[in-house]
């Protein structure tokens, strides 16, 4: 699997079983974020393919995934509840075999993440960490089996980081999949890892012609 744009990666191939997590590591600028964005369907593949077995055939792979990037996609003018309710209604849920999501109400997940008391407040009043937790809450209100997490623990304190890891492990137990790019080690249970190395010049040359 590769992505031909300017300089990213080539000859990459992996498979992930349901209930497993994949941690993508590697030096800065090697394309961890690009890999996640590719899986999320935001960047198109120049060659190769993505497949999801047991998925809904009329939907693309990307529509089975939640993408959790560096930006929180929180609108300060809307209240916390309104922010979450919009993503719940707007994101189409994806159901696949082997994946049995827990049903969360909007208020439940906010309580679980420790920001239940803010639900009526405009999101402008939230601190950076609280905004981040609100963004995490989005993953739970609309069930999708694959989570693509780009540095999920940035801006979270130790407490909420541990909480998030618990929630991630729970997601894995229910048959979900997680692909995450991170620098800090995460204690996820069935864990595979993928290390991206910087490409050498010879590898890059043919790609430049494609892109």
């Amino acid at each position, binding site marked *: 699997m590769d992505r031909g*744009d300017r300089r990213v990666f080539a000859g990459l191939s992996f498979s992930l079983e349901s209930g497993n997590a994949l941690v993508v590591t590697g030096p800065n600028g090697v394309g961890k974020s690009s890999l996640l*964005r590719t899986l*999320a*369907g*935001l*960047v*198109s593949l120049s060659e190769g393919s993505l497949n999801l077995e047991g998925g809904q055939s009329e*939907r693309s792979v*990307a*529509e089975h*995934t939640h*993408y959790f*990037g*560096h*930006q*929180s*996609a*929180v*609108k*300060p*003018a*809307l209240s916390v509840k*309104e922010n979450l*309710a*919009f*993503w719940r*209604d*707007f*994101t*189409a849920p*994806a159901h696949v075999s082997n994946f049995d999501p827990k049903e969360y109400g909007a208020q439940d997940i906010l309580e679980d993440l420790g920001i239940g008391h803010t639900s009526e407040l405009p999101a402008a009043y939230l601190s950076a960490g609280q905004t981040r937790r609100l963004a995490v809450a*989005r993953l739970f209100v609309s069930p999708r089996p694959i989570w693509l997490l780009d540095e999920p623990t940035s801006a979270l304190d130790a407490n909420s980081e541990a909480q998030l890891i618990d929630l991630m492990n729970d997601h894995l137990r229910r048959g979900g999949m997680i692909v995450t790019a991170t620098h800090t080690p995460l204690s996820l249970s069935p864990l595979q890892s993928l290390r991206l190395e910087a490409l050498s010049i010879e590898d890059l040359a043919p790609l430049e012609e494609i892109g």
Partner: protein
Amino acid sequence: MSSWALSLFQRELRLAVRVGGGALVGVLFFLAVVTVIPFGVGPDLNLLARIGPAILWIGALLATLLGLDRLFQADRDDGSLDLILMAGRPLELVVLIKCLAHWMATGLPLVAAAPVLAIFLNLEPTAIGAVTLTLAAGTPALTLIGAIGASLTVTLRRGGLLLAVLVIPLTIPVLIFGVSAADAAVNDPVPFMTPFLILCSLSLISLVVGPFASAAALRFSSD
């Protein structure tokens, strides 16, 4: 199907109306443009009555275009656009709903303000009615065509001016038929319906072309 659309529509309206949304700034800009023009051409009421429909149309065009640059950019800036793209909803419809909400929040007030501003320009009652009607029929086209420009310039830091430059040529037909329909209502021998129906058909065409072109541009923008 309809619940997500309603949810999106509500969100867009709320964002436009609440603090920082600035839905009414467009009307204010419209008012300012129309007020400034008599200073340029002089306070001759007969002249103003003759060029009044054109002034109102140009004011509405500029107000619409200047309000459009944040249509997708605000969502891109905070990462919402990525999530909208992968939400699994037909993007053309998403664009259409966003345009509809945007028109309700900014275009409709322009139409409502037009009769008042027409009084400043000494328009006759029939002319006032005609201009308001043509604006009501034509401003959706401006919003929908403008949305194409908004999605093309979504990745740019300062896309506002470029958007206006890109879109103004595309809006010329709307302007021509809008103004000529309004003029025709006052000058008896020319029929009103002919240019007005063309204007309506332009709006309908942009209703189809706008969302498709805009959705295509958005899909490439995330690359």
